Structure formats: structure tokens, C-alpha cells
């Protein structure tokens, strides 16, 4: 790991908000897993919390952090370092810190109170969502100089993927219920990182009743194994694309 990334990582790990986030995740995971004897059910409850909290904290915290570091970024860029390197290392530092926070807050209780067999998909999507929404945060922060606008964009991105996207899918399903749209629906469901994360965990837990319409179609179209593979590929694409666009923008940006 590069010196800049490590520096930022240590700075964030000592940040009070991240410590609070870790403790919060730990308490939630511990109480959910401790109260419910059935591992599968407990993992499902925890899944819903993770899908809500991890993207929100990752994107808002990262956006604010990038804005707060603007003068520090200028100082780094006045050193003989390439722009792309500075930007990538900030991303790396942020993402690593948030992954560590998630692993301590959620991964540790899963290991202690549940089993790795039921919990591993949840751990994977927690890591993926942390990276994906950090990547979105970098994009939001590079799009505008105005901090309030940047945070606004972040909140909208989070709301879009967590709430609005599923709503649109639902409307489409009702509108076109008479047509054979399973394939399209499965594709659309597979394009949303949050929805896809849910499907990914549910496919692994093998509970089709909980999949919901989009997930059921998804499982039907892709089958369990293939579905999981494709999910991971799509999640990886989501983790890299927003960051790459932000990098292109950052290279042309006046600071």
C-alpha cells in the first residue's frame, strides 16, 4: 500500500465518526445474531440493516472527507506526484478504512455468533457495498466545488439505489404484467448494486420465498451458481466505473 493511502487510512481509523459507525454495526450485529437462534433468519435481519446503513455511511462519510481534504489534496499535488496516483490513493485509503470498519463491526460478530458458511455472502456484499459507495462518493465530490451540492448528489445516489430504483421496477412490472418481461426485469434488477447485493445473499441462503419478484426472476433466469458469479462481476463493475469517471474528471479539474 502506498504511503499516501496508508496515511489517509490511519487518519480515518482515528476518526470519531468511523469509530462510532464500527461500534454501531457491532452492537446491531451482536444483538441481531444473539437474539435469533436460527442462523439463516438472523442473517436475513442483519442483511436488511447492512443494505441500509453501509451504503449510506460509506457515501456520505467519503464525500465529506474528500471535501474536507481539498487543501490537503492541493498540497499533495504540489509535490512531484501524478494526479491519478493521488486520487487513487485517496480512494484506496477511504475504501480500506470503511472495509475494516465493516469487518470489525459486522464480520467479527458473524464469526463469533453465527457461522462463516451462512455469513460469508453477507461479508462479501458488505465489502463490495463499502467500495461501490466510496466510488460513488468520489464521483459526487469531483462533480461540483460546492460541498452542499456534493453531499446532495451523494444522498440522491444513495436514495436512488436504495429506494427509488426498486419503486421504478415495481411500477414497470405492474404496467407490463401482460408481457413476457422476465428477462428485462432480471437484467434491470441485476443493474442495481443494492438490489443485486440482496439477491446475492438470498441466492446463497437459498430461500426463494424471500427473493421477491425481481430476485425470483433473477434466480430463474440465471440459476443459483451462475447468478452469484454474474452478481459479483456486476458489483465489481459498479465499484470501478464511478471511480474511473471521477478520475477522468479529476485529471481535467481546476482545483
Amino acid at each position, binding site marked *: 500500500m502506498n*504511503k499516501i493511502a496508508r496515511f489517509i487510512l490511519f487518519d480515518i481509523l482515528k*476518526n470519531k465518526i468511523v469509530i462510532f459507525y464500527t461500534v454501531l454495526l457491532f452492537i446491531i450485529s451482536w444483538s441481531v445474531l444473539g437474539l435469533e437462534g436460527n442462523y439463516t433468519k438472523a442473517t436475513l435481519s442483519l442483511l436488511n440493516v447492512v443494505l441500509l446503513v453501509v451504503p449510506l455511511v460509506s457515501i456520505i462519510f467519503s464525500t465529506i472527507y474528500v471535501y474536507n481534504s481539498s487543501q490537503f489534496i*492541493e498540497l499533495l*499535488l504540489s509535490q512531484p506526484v501524478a494526479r491519478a496516483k493521488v486520487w487513487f490513493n485517496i480512494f484506496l485509503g477511504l475504501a480500506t478504512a470503511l472495509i475494516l470498519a465493516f469487518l470489525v463491526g459486522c464480520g467479527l460478530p458473524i464469526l463469533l455468533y453465527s457461522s462463516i458458511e451462512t455469513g460469508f455472502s453477507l461479508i462479501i456484499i458488505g465489502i463490495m457495498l463499502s467500495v461501490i459507495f466510496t466510488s460513488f462518493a468520489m464521483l459526487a465530490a469531483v462533480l461540483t466545488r460546492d460541498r452542499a451540492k456534493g453531499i446532495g448528489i451523494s444522498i440522491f445516489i444513495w436514495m436512488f439505489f436504495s429506494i427509488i430504483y426498486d419503486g421504478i421496477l415495481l411500477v414497470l412490472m405492474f404496467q407490463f404484467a401482460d408481457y413476457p418481461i422476465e428477462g428485462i426485469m432480471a437484467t434491470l434488477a441485476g443493474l442495481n448494486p443494492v438490489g443485486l447485493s440482496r439477491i446475492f445473499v438470498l441466492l446463497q441462503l437459498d430461500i426463494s420465498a424471500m427473493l421477491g419478484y425481481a430476485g425470483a426472476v433473477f434466480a430463474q433466469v440465471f440459476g443459483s451458481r451462475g447468478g452469484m458469479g454474474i452478481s459479483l462481476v456486476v458489483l465489481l463493475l459498479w465499484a470501478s466505473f464511478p471511480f474511473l469517471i471521477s478520475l477522468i474528471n479529476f485529471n481535467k479539474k*481546476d482545483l
Partner: protein
Amino acid sequence: MIDVKKLTKKFNKFTALDDLNLQFTDSKSIALIGPNGCGKTTLIKCILGLNVIETGDILVDGKSVKEDFRYRENIGYMPQIGRYPENMTIGQTIQMIKDTRKIPASELDTELLQDFALENLYHKKMRTLSGGTTQKVSAVLAFMFNPKIIILDEPTAGLDPLSSEILKKKIIKEKNKGKLIIITSHLLSELDEIISEVVFMNEGRIIVQQSVEDLMTEHKTEKISESIISILKEMKK
């Protein structure tokens, strides 16, 4: 040596720098002055590569700033407002910049570090520092790597009289070593002892580029600040 060639910088429709031609030669300390919004900071940011250049070019020691970032090995920069990651200490911050520069410890210039007695504060977190102490860290970083060119943006703004005296002495010392020093400042009285050349900018153009002696004989004054004020008065007419 910095050579600015036909540099035009626009922000949307606003022209910040308008067809600028300028040369900064070594062993001089140059004051960039002008009213707010005249393009001083934009010019500095263009030299540092913080602003992207579309038309024109800037050559630092013959190398274009548009091509390779390595020309910045020769530049030390002290920003007007320094803000550093909050939870890291002074020691860690300085160490990190040292690591990105990769210069052997024997070649480092730690004079300012000692004069400011910053080593006693190495364990302090950046968040807890006063504005002046943060400025000292920025100043130390600008001089530490023995760069040929040193750019200081409002260097003495937050410093106490004693520290700003230390910094001024250091600036004069480095100038006498043959380095190029560029200072922007609004505190005209501060500049008197330090500078050898004045560049006066307004609305993205150079109004005057003159050595201090010429400037003072022309305006029949004894202080730079008075000559600048007489230029300003002429402009208003």
C-alpha cells in the same frame, strides 16, 4: 526559471488570465501583487499544475508543466490556508511528505524546523493546532526539500512577529543562494526587505514588472509600499 508564454486561463466565461507573458529568473525574489481577483492565485496554481492549462504554456526550467509532473521536484509551495488530515500528528504529516519526495535525509533542509522548534510539537495532532502553527508546518514543508523555486502564498498572514521574522530571514537567505522566490502578499510593508522585483497584476494582465530600484526611482519613493500605492492611484485616474 519560469517562463510563462501566452497563457490564457478562463473559468467558464470569466477570463482570469489574459494572454500573459512573463519571465521569472533565478536568484530573485519576486512579489506578485494586485487587487483581489486579479489572477495572482490562478497564476500560481497554473505554475503548480493545480489549474489545467488550455491555451499557452508555462515552462519550468525548460520543461512544460503540461507534460510531466516531475518538474514539481524543483518547487516548494506554501499555501495560504493549509488544512491537513485532522487526526495525524505533525511528525506523521512531515514524514508522509518526505516519503512522497524520496529525498535522502542528508539533503533535507531542516533549518526552519529547528528555528520554529516544531520538533517539540511532533506528537500534536493537526486538528489541535492554531492557524499560526499550521502555517509553520506549511512553511517547513515548502523549504525542506531544497527546491530551486519557492512559492509562498501570503506567507506571514497568520504568523506571530517573531516567527514571521524567522521566515523572512530564511527567505532572504535562500534568495542569496540563487533560488527563485515568488511571494504574494497584501501586507506591502512586509515586503520591503525581502524582494528584488515587483510584478503588479490587474484583471488578468501584467501592469508593471520592474526591479525594486527602478520602481522606487521612477516613483521617487523610498519604500515599495509607497510606490505601489502611487501605481494604484494612477490606475484609478
